[in-house]
Structures are given as C-alpha cells and as structure tokens.
C-alpha cells in the first residue's frame, strides 16, 4: 500500500506551491490547487481504508501494515527517529475522518473566504495543516508523532492568527501555541523517560504487550512511583494540551478567533482529538502496565466534560458554545478510553471512544460549518443578533438541526449510538461515573438546543440586509456532512475498530439507551420552553441562577488564574528579576572591575609624572630604606 505516501505528499506539495508562488496566483487557481489536491488525497484515503478493512485481516484480527519506514535521524546506538506510514484500524479510520472533513472545509472555504485578502495564504496553511495531521496519525513511532504534533500546533497557530492585523486574533494564536507548547514539553519529557528505559520510539515494539521491554522502566522508581507511570502520565499531559482538557483547555475558546471553517477542521474535528488518538495509540501500554494513569484519564475526562458543559450553557457567542461543547465531547472520548479494558466486551470503552471520535468529527464539523454559514449571513457571532433564521436559511437550518439531534443523542442519528456505548461503558465502570456522564449528556442536549432555538427560532432581529442562504459551495458540505451524521451510527463499528483488533458484536444496552434518550428529550423540551418562542422566562434564567451564571459566564475564572500566573508571576516576577539581575548584578560586577581598575589607575598615575627631581628623591629614599633594612634586620 505504498500509494499511501501520496496522502502525505499531495497536501505538502500544495503547501509548497501555494506558499512560494501563491502571491502570484489568482484566487481561483490557488483554491483549485488546494481543493484539487485534497480531492485526490481523499480518494486515496477512501481506497486505502477500503482495501485495508477488506484485506488486512488475518484470523479475524486486523494486522498492522507499515508500507514505508525510513531512517530520519539517529540518536545513539539504539534510538533513531524514523519517518514512515503505519496503517492499523485507528489510523485508517482517522484517514477517512481527516480527509472527509478537510475536503469539505476546503470546498466550503471557496465560498466562505471568497474575496478575502490572503486567500492563497489561507489555502497554503490549510494544506500544511492537513499534511501535518495526516503525518501525525500515520506515524510509526512516537517521535515522528511528536514532530507532526508540533507541526499541527504551528499550522493551528498560523490559522488562528490568520487575520493577523486583528490584535485579538494575534493574542489568541499566541495563547494557543504557548499553552499547547507547555503541554508538549511534558509530552517530550515523557518521551525522553520512556525511550531511555525502553530504548525504542517504535509504536510496534511499545504496544506489543510484551512486558520485558518495560522491565527497567517499571523497576526504576522516582518519588515513589515507577518511571513508566511517570512517562505515561507525562505523555498524557501532552495529550490534554492538544485536546483541551482541564486545566489546559483555556486556549480553545479563544482559538475561535480564526476563520470559522478552520474552527470546524482543526478545533472541532481533527487536531483537538489528537490527545485522544495519542492515548488510543498507546492504549496497550496504558491498560496493561499503567492502569492507574488510565484511571486518571477517565477522571480528567469526566471532570472536563462536566466543567465545559456547564460553561457552554451560558455562553452567548455561538462559536464559543460550540468550542465548549467540543471540550465536553472530547471529555466523553477520554472517559471512554479511561474506563476501557483490552479484551472482548471489557474493551467496549475503547471502541466507543473511537466511534464517538468519528461521529463527533462529522456532526461537530457540520455544526461549525453551519455556524459559519449563519455568521456569514448576519455578520455577528452573538446569539442576541440572531433569531428566526429558519425561514431565510432552510438548508443551514435543517442540517444544523440534524447535527443538534445527533449530538444530543436522539436516535437514529449517529451521536445516539456512539454516546450510548460510552454511557454503557461508564456504567460498567461504576454507577457513579455512569450517572455523572448521563447528566453531562442531558446538559449537552440542553445547551445545544438553547443554541439551536436562539439562532433559528425566537424573535427575528433587524439586520442591515435580509439574511439569505449561503452559496452552493457552502451548503454542499453541509448536506454532505449531514449524511454520515444521519447514517453514521449504523456502521457496525465493532467489526472494524476494537481494543484488541478482533471483531465484536455490539449489544444495545436498552436500559442505558432509554434513560439517556429520556433525559435528552426532557432537556430539549426545557430548552424549547425557554428559547423557542419569545417569552418572559428567558430573561429570568440569569437571575435565577445568579452566582453560578456569573461564574460560568466568566468560564469559572480560569483565564484570570492564568493571567495571574503568567503576567504577575512569570513575566513580572521571574523574567523582570532576571533581566534586572543581569543588567545590574552580573554586568554590574563586570563594570565594577572596570571601575576599580580605572580608580586605581587614576591614583597611581601620579607616580609617572616625568619629573626628574621627584624620581631622584624616590631613588635616594629607596636606597636609604634598603640599606637600613640590610643593616638592621
């Protein structure tokens, strides 16, 4: 399957072409280059996925295929970074997800970014992102993954800061990069620790389940915990940065400063699930050797999903609602991984997590693109400027509704199936966790329908010109993505992607499914009572919830905490002190030497006056003194 190399080369070529010559090309040509290369890449991905899932199964177990692997950089006797392509169920699934969403975003952007200054640059960055993301999921070793992990971060930085003359976009881009970089630092340290003890970066060796390679890492202790636990925990922290888990989630809402299609691609469907993918990739290590870290993954995911869902309930910027919703949904995926085991039905969580990753990518991309369509029409991100848009934008309205039903977990839409399996897995883990996640699911249904009703129902607002449906290039992706959103749940996912790679039949847990549907419907009903038609109740919500409402609107003051740490402590406390110390103490010492030398030279300068009488006197007294010394001592 060597042709998969072109999945990487096509977007890279497109990036280089547009990056170097984009400025000389017309918008049309550059859009064509970007979208065209993506179209071919997507076809290749589909072909690869089809042929992988149909042919690479031996004794009902999917095999890992490595069509290409070349040495990139040698580091010592055993360690070396390779560049290669690894195909296994999850990477192939990601190929389909990334290329589908990326292609839709490329097409959508033809309309959305039309006439925008820097159109070529935009497509160049999109290509760079697609290349990096593909490289990330196809990595054969953890260091290659880290390399593309960083590149993904850079493309995200470039795209968030696309409107670089806007200070808020510049600040958001910077924040996103630095926060994720901070997490990446832990990731890197984790890799260092892991590779030192195992002497390999290779995923194949690491995830083989063979305990002998971890022997040293398990026996080496640091602060009462084994080095392997440290390494895996540090690597997970790297994952929480990209996947915006609490408390490193703060960059994601700000990242909404980027163009909306970018938010759909990077900050909803693909890049932000990189952390989930990372845990899934190293799942055998987590589950077999460091189950305590895996539990941590579950708790971090559970807390984050609740935390973000609470904030999403009160946000007024539609993109921020979606951003917090994304954080919350990634929390679901993390929880599912965290509660999973390896074999058979105990591996349900793993399968559910990947399933949800897939369905979420489709419906969340659809939601974002729909939101972009709305923003395109009313030129605002704020809910208060919207309302009653269903009449003006029928396609956007219908597809948005489908996606909302999917995320709320209403059958038969895709989200219902994946979420239901996650809930089953959490109930299996513990009832408390199950109830907790069911509450989050209810909140999800509520805030999504609050969003939906506020945009498309409610009171119609006055606009400068009447909102109208977006062009075909924008509505086509909406319709296209609606298809997997409606039908995606019917895919027998357990046949393809499982923790131990052997197929397994999914059984509906009717009890869990029933409860989750009922709570979702109740939540939607409440949302409709509050927001569907203009009424007095809407205004009473903030006052009824008072303290909570205020705290949630301020995102529980996490940004303030960060500002305090970075501005007050690091910038003014550390950096300023260092700079002062350098100028006044270190350099002062050097200047001090110079001053002392200077001072002495002024004092002793008089000795060489050039006056012969003075020299004669000194000579005479000197002779007398020496004579005296010789005589009397």
């Amino acid at each position: 399957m060597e042709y998969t190399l072109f999945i990487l080369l096509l977007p890279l070529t497109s990036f280089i072409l547009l990056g170097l010559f984009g400025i000389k090309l017309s918008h049309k040509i550059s859009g064509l280059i970007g979208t065209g290369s993506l179209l071919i890449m997507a076809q290749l991905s589909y072909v690869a996925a089809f042929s992988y899932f149909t042919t690479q199964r031996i004794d009902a177990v999917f095999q890992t295929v490595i069509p290409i692997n070349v040495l990139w950089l040698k580091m010592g006797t055993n360690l070396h970074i390779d560049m290669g392509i690894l195909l296994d169920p999850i990477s192939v699934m990601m190929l389909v997800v990334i290329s589908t969403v990326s292609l839709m975003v490329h097409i959508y952007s033809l309309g959305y970014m039309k006439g925008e200054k820097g159109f070529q640059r935009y497509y160049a960055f999109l290509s760079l992102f697609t290349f990096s993301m593909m490289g990330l999921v196809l990595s054969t070793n953890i260091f290659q993954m880290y390399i593309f992990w960083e590149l993904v971060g850079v493309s995200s930085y470039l795209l968030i800061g696309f409107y670089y003359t806007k200070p808020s976009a510049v600040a958001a881009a910077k924040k996103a990069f630095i926060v994720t970089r901070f997490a990446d630092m832990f990731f890197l340290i984790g890799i260092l620790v892991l590779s030192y003890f195992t002497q390999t970066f290779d995923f194949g060796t690491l995830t083989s389940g063979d305990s002998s390679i971890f022997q040293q890492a398990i026996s080496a202790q640091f602060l009462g915990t084994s080095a392997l636990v440290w390494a895996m925990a540090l690597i997970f922290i790297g994952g929480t940065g990209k996947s915006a888990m609490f408390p490193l989630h703060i960059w994601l809402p700000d990242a909404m400063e980027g163009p909306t299609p970018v938010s759909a691609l990077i900050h909803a469907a693909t890049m932000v699930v990189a952390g989930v993918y990372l845990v899934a990739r190293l799942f055998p290590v987590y589950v077999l050797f460091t189950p305590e870290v895996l539990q941590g993954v579950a708790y971090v995911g559970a807390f984050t999903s609740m935390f973000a869902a609470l904030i999403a309930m009160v946000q007024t910027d539609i993109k921020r609602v979606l951003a917090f919703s994304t954080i919350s949904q990634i929390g679901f995926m993390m929880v599912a991984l965290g509660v999973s085991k390896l074999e058979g039905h105990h591996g349900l969580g793993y399968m559910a997590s990947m399933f949800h990753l897939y369905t979420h990518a489709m419906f969340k991309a659809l939601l974002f693109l729909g939101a972009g369509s709305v923003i395109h029409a009313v030129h605002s991100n704020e809910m208060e400027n919207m309302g009653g848009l269903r009449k003006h934008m029928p396609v956007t309205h219908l597809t948005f509704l489908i996606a909302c039903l999917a995320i709320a977990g209403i059958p038969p839409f895709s989200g219902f199936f994946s979420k239901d399996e996650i809930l089953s897995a959490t109930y299996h883990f513990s009832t408390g966790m199950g109830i907790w996640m069911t509450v989050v699911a209810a909140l999800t249904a509520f805030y999504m329908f609050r969003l939906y009703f506020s945009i498309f129902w409610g009171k119609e607002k006055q606009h400068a010109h009447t909102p109208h449906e977006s062009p075909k290039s924008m509505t086509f992706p909406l319709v296209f993505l609606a298809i997997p959103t409606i039908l995606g749940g019917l895919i027998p996912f357990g046949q393809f992607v499982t923790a131990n790679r052997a197929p397994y039949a999914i059984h509906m847990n009717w009890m869990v499914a029933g409860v989750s549907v009922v709570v979702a419907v109740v939540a939607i009903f409440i949302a409709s009572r509050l927001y569907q038609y203009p009424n007095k109740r809407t205004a009473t919500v903030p006052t009824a919830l008072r303290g909570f409402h205020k705290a949630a609107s301020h995102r529980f003051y996490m940004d303030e905490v960060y500002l305090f740490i970075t501005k007050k402590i690091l910038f003014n406390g550390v950096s300023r002190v260092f700079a002062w110390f350098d100028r006044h103490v270190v350099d002062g010492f050097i200047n001090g030497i110079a001053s002392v030398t200077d001072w002495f030279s002024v004092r002793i300068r008089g000795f060489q006056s050039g006056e012969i009488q003075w020299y004669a006197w000194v000579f005479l007294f000197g002779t007398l003194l020496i004579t005296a010394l010789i005589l009397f001592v």
Partner: protein
Amino acid sequence: MNFLSLFVLLPLLMILALFVVRSRKQILGVMVTGSSLLVLLSAYLAYHYIAVRNSGNTDSMLFTASLSWFKPLNIQYAVGVDGVSVVMLCLSSVIVFTGTFVSWKIAPLTKEFFLWYCLLATGVYGFFITLDLFTLFLFYETALIPMYLLIGVWGSGPKAYSAMKLTLMLMGSSMILLVGILGIYFGSGATSMHISELVHHPMAAEQQYFFFTLTFFGFGVLGALFPFHTWSPDGHASAPTAVSMLHAGVLMKLGGYGCFRIAIQLMPMAAERLSPIFLLLTGIGVVYGAFAAIRQTDLKYINAYSSVSHCNLVLFAILMLTQTSMTGAVLQMLSHGLITALFFALIGMIYGRTHTRLITEMGGLMKIMPFLGVSFVIAGFSNIGVPGLSGFVAEMTIFVGSFENGDLFRRVLTIAAVTSIVVGAVYILRSIGRFLQGPLQNEGHGKLDDAHWYERLAVVTLIAGILYIGSFPTGVAEIISDSFGSLLQVAK
C-alpha cells in the same frame, strides 16, 4: 600544498586584493568572488570528506599536514579536519558569504570595513583547520582583535563602550586560556603542541583539574558561559549587522569547538569530574537567558539573550559527554549559527528601514514588508524548535543525548533545559505579535520598501540551510556523530 590551507590563503588574498582596488564596485567584486570561492571550497571539502570516509578511511583526522615554524617550542602549522571541523567550515563560509551581501551598502570606509572583515574570517577559518594548540590560539586572537575595530568604528549606539567591554572580556578570558594551553603542553610532557600527540600524553588528574578549569573557562566565555556572557548582548546590539552575524554565527562557536576539541578531549578525567559545576552554570544559563529575553524590547537584545540561552545549551550538551549529546551540540552550533545570522541580518534590514529596533515602536510590518516578515517568522520558528527547521533537530538530539546519563542530577538539569522550549516560544511569539502583526502602528512606516535583491539572496541562502538541516538531518548528523565516536574512543 595541502588544500586546507586555501581556507586561510583565500581571505588573505582578498585582503591583498582589497588594497589594490579602488571603486566600490571593485571592492564588492572582490568580496563576492572571494566569498563565493570560499563557499565552493567548503562544498568541495564536504564532498571530498564524505567520499574519503565512504572509501573506508577511519583516521580521526583527514587531509593532515604540518610544518614547523618555531623550532625552540616546536610549534607547528598543522592542519587536518574531522567531521566537526568540516561542518563548522561550511557554516563559516555561508555566514561570510551572506554577511557580504548584507553589508552591500556599508559606509563610510567601505574598503577598511571589508579588510577587517576578511581578517576576522582568516582567524575563524584558521582556527577550525588547525591542530596545533599554539597556532590555534594565534588564529583565535586574530579573529578577536578585528571585532574591536569593527564595532568601535562601524557600530551604533554606545559603540565605544560595547567594543571595549567585548574585547576586554574576551581578551581576559583568552589570557586565562593561554595559561591553560601552556599548562597542557608542559604538563603532558609531549614534544609538540599537536593535538593528536597531546591526546596520547594525558596529564595527571590533579593537573587536569586545574588546567581543564582554565581552558574550559577561557573558551567558555566566548561561548557565552553564564555568568560571563554580558559582553554578548551589548556587543551584538552595537555591532554592525554583518559583524553581529559573523560574531554570533561563527565566532561564538569557536568557544564551543575549543571546549570539546581541547578541554574535554585532552583532559577527559577532569571533564568527567568537573562537569557538574559547569553543567550547573550552563543549565542556569539556558533558562536564565530565555527568561531574560522575554523582558527585552530591543530586537537585537532579544536575539542576543536568546543566543545566550542557545549557546549555553551548546556547552551544556558538550558537558553531558555522550556521543549523542555532543553530536547535538555541534548540530546546535550549526543550527544556531544559521538562525542567529538570519535574525541579525533581518533585524539589520528592518532597522535600516524603520530606524528603530524597539518592538514597542513598530507594529503591523508584515503587511508592509512581507518578505522580511515571513523570513523573520521562519527564523523565529526555527529558534523555538519547530520541526522541519534546524533548531528542532539540534535540540532534540541534545535532549535525548543528555538523558542518556543515568544520574538524577543530569536528568533534572536536562528537564530544566527542556523548559526553555516553552519560554522560547513566549519571547519569539511576543515579538512577532508586537512588531509584525497587529495594526500598523507608525504611519511613517507605511511607505517602506521590502527587501532588495542582495538582501533576498542572503536571507534565502540562510533559510535554505536551515530547512536543509531541519528536513534532511541524516547525513549531517552522521558526519558529526562519526567523528565523536573516534574522539570519545581516543579519550577513553
């Protein structure tokens, strides 16, 4: 005649030619021809070196030759190269070449500027090809002295102060270095100062401790060893662009190069024993330099402190004493040389247009000068270790190599050094966000032009080097790493 001597002869010939020519055009003609020939020569050397190595030659030094020029002390003009010298020579040629184009409009006293510039180059090239301790020291001094005039005459700001400070601090350290070198020679009881001979005459441990400290310190100051780095920010800020490039790009690497070639290779026992002290200093330097850079508002100071951080990382990696970390150190010298030269070149070009280097007085320049802006972003990305650019390869090799040491002390220091990748991101993105992005701050900047052809040539050359090392590091890393294999073996 050994073709390595051409590296010294060519700059000397350029000096002679500069004496003869008159017009500005001719001066530039001499410089462009000479520096292009140097680039070709380095390329030939690299090609030839790889060919000889591939044919199975495993001598530690290739293309050796020697000639005694001071019998009483048996001082020789001895040359020879290994992989490390080859890459450093290539780096020097690229920087000398690009520095020429960056100084295209230098005035007044154009001829004199290039005269000193070539002399500086002579010293640098001589240093990298020489294997005799005394001759090496001679070239070292040859490279230092022109700095004083280049900064003092063509510099800006408090140039007299900066030039004096830089020269005195470096002279002071080289005095200590000289004591160290003479100590090695007399202490070892060898019959010549040839490094290959000295390696086989190791000194007693107590003597090693003493002279290692002197030698490492002597070279270390030039490599911005914390806390003796303060000449660097002032010196760089005042120096004219090409001199900053050459100084930060190549001259500071003389320090790192000398540290392993002499201090560590000749006194391995002391290196083993004393490295913790110096590791602590350099480790502090890495983090400290990065934090100090955050507070700066002058672009040159930002880059100078960033250089302090990165150059300390070079020394840090050398002291980790593993083959991988030392390979990383040389990669970092190479990478930092290119990056910092690119930075200084760009800062010089931007300053030449806006007449300010304060990021608080600029804003939104990306729109006005997209070429320079994009290049600055690339330099910045490389500086903070974005994959595909050279900084990443170097830093990662260093981190992995340093982690090969099993003891907790070195582990903790390595992890401390890793934090610099985050702090680095802060100061780079802060300055990019401040002066390139955002709305146009100064109306007067709206009409400024983008880079000229000669500036573009310099910038593109440097970026090509950064991209090459960052994307295809296999070959370069291998050349360097092989040399260390034999070096560490000899030391043991």
